[in-house]
């Protein structure tokens, strides 16, 4: 599990110089107080388990042993207005829904029809319909969002929590990473000498400088003194820490978090309950960390594809097509499930096995980037090339 936040300082240097010509810089909107967080659920969340369309006449029959307990009964679904119900492990998210701060998007998928985790994640993160066959991107779409935002007086944009930068955030806008510091580490002076040895190194030089700065050892500190930050290492704790970083008036404005454990080919019910609980606590932790900045925040939760409608031979589900996504935050027009429901009768399914997609994740993202961050059509086309058929989704945002 990794958690990444972007830091502004880097953008002021390299990122803006490389990726922003004068033209796009001129039309780029200042991010101001708006925050955008993307939570990537790697491994393919079963959308029909997270948000069950229990009102579909074919649902119970198709799901077999994976059919959930109906709303109103002990351990039952948390109702979302009579047709859909949230998995009972998502109680925190249900509270957000009732506060009109959670929007559920169902029967949604990325641009790709691949049942390979790796291809689908690549496409989802690079923001292209088919990375393998072109156009091949050298940066992730979330990184291109960072380069699309105008530099401001903020000290930092690209700041990361975790040990790996996901593809989504890789690119010219430099992204640091941060995890709780380990117990023993060299003193400031030895750090400074090590950083100096790495300075000319193309791969490690900048990373070590950024890493030290993110731990509180800025260039100035390496000559002076300051204490590094610390926190526990679970998804909810890291999410809350990310929220606090985003809440800082001079802090970063965009972030990406990852949570794995969704590839439930076998014994899905117990495995999913645990990881959904982590997600739920993490999202609530994020809100807690953000504090009043939650009102200015949109969190997008997405996964590379959905899973098969029917249970497989091992009480699990296999790789499918459409699934569920979430938009949440104080800036979201929530309290609704938004879907053009394709139905679960076998003839309605993709290849007679998967939920059919009726919405595009890129349309959702573009709707948020446009309305929330103020990015224009030209920038959206750069962030999601080849997405002309996925018009920005309207109505995701409040007001």
């Amino acid at each position, binding site marked *: 599990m990794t958690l990444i936040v972007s830091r502004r300082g880097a953008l002021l240097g390299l990122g803006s110089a490389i990726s922003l010509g004068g033209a796009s810089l001129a039309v780029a909107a200042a991010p101001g107080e708006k925050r955008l967080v993307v939570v990537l659920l790697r491994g393919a969340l079963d959308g029909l388990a997270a948000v069950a369309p229990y009102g579909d006449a074919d649902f119970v029959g198709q799901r077999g042993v994976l059919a959930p307990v109906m709303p109103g009964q002990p351990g039952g679904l948390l109702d979302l207005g009579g047709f859909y119900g949230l998995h009972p492990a998502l109680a925190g998210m249900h509270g957000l829904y009732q506060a009109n701060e959670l929007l559920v998007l169902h029967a949604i998928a990325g641009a790709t029809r691949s049942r390979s985790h790796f*291809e689908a994640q690549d496409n989802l993160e690079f923001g292209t319909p088919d990375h393998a066959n072109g156009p091949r991107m050298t940066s992730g779409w979330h990184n291109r969002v960072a380069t699309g935002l105008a530099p401001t007086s903020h000290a930092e944009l690209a700041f990361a929590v975790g040990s790996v930068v996901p593809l989504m955030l890789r690119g010219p806008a430099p992204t640091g990473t941060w995890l709780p510091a380990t117990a023993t580490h*060299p003193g400031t002076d030895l750090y400074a000498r090590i950083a100096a040895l790495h300075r000319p190194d193309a*791969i*490690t030089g900048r990373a*070590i400088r950024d890493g030290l700065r993110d731990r509180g050892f800025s260039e100035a500190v390496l000559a002076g003194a300051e204490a590094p930050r610390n926190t526990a290492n679970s998804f909810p704790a890291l999410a809350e820490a990310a929220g606090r970083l985003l809440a800082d008036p001079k802090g970063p404005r965009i972030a990406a978090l990852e949570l*794995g454990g969704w590839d439930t080919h076998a014994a899905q019910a117990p495995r999913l309950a645990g990881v959904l609980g982590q997600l739920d606590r993490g999202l609530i932790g994020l809100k807690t960390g953000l504090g009043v900045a939650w009102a200015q925040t949109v969190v997008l939760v997405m996964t590379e594809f959905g899973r098969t409608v029917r249970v497989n031979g091992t009480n699990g589900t296999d790789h499918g097509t459409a699934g569920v996504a979430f938009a949440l935050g104080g800036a979201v027009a929530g309290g609704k499930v938004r879907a053009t429901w394709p139905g679960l009768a076998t003839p309605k399914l993709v290849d007679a096995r998967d939920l059919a997609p009726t919405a595009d994740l890129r349309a959702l993202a573009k709707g948020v980037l446009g309305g929330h961050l103020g990015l224009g059509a030209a920038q959206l086309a750069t962030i999601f090339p080849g997405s002309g058929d996925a018009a920005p989704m309207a109505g995701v945002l409040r007001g």
Partner: protein
Amino acid sequence: MALPADPRGWLAGQLDGPDAAMDRPWHSSAEGLRAIRLDQQDKDGKQAHVRPIITADAATAIDVLLTTDAPFRERLVWFWANHFTVSLRRGQVTALAHAYLREAIRPHVTGRFEDMLVAVMRHPAMLIYLDNAQSFGPNSNAGMRARRGLNENLARECLELHTVTPVSGYTQTDVTEFAKVLTGWSVRYDEEPPGYLFRVNAHELGSKTVMGQVYAGGEGEGMRALGWLAEQPSTYRNLATKLVRHFVADVPPPGAVARVERVLSQTKGNLKAAALEVVALPDAWTPLTKLRRPMDYVVGVLRALDLPQGRRPDLRGVFGMLGQPYMSAPLPNGWSDLAEDWAAPEALLRRIDWAYSIAGRAGDADPVAIADASLGELLPADTMSAIRRAGDRREALTLLLAAPEFQRR
């Protein structure tokens, strides 16, 4: 350890004869499966039978890494283990992972790819990890009786990762059909001897077509399908690309890939010949091109320091702290071979912190001697002078182990 006088001959010589590490006291997969069964009977979740197996075998595996005089061969073992990833993230694999290396990987590192593929696909660790042990032909007797069906996980990853890859153009139908071919390839826990078992009752009878090849049913059709997949040009391309990416450069030079691919094709998948071709590539001799993964880095540090066994840290814990938990890749595609996946700021700082910590255990080792022996002339003057000018041995060793050159091979 200084470089041998004839490096090429030294590497090639490591591939002659059987793997000496085969003779270490590994637990077998039968012992692992018995331990799983006994732990399930205990119902206390304490893993009293599995835990000693993983503890002992991991210690043996790490000792082999640190002490082997055939480090190139050992790297090939871990390369192929990563190509055919199984992961301790799947609980039952814990009891079987080292048996898997011993039984399915090591015997074939200098043998034929097809033999390794078959050994892997029939090994309990892989059958459990990718769910095939519980895949039932939908129309098989056992499948009908238990109302169970197909699980296509192993079939998909075998096509996508282990052999032909998506460039070969297979379809979802091919995946499903191949999964049917593999139905019945399962694991026996309850009867002696535990191990691979073909459950004829779970096998989907009738004809299947996988990538244009027709199979008539039975255990043998899976063997034939693997034999066919093992010899496809797209498989050789996949293996050659991965070998060159691992041993030469993140972006594999096309000429180097073509050479290894040609050897694989000419020898029908002879992995020793492929490894020797890698050694013969001029590009393979450019020093310090590849960023070490955490496990590789830690092993390199420990081999350089040559700590006595009592002063070695718990390396399994170290691998995890540095971002590569032992034999626990998150997904079936295994650990990445790209520098950018390991060069995140925090990940590198953790290496530095660990280098500082291990340097504290090195006692009165001479940092300059270790620097000469491990990197020698590859160390640039400023690194060497920083080591010489360090305030104490620990600082000097930290500077060596944290230096950019030590992060590479």
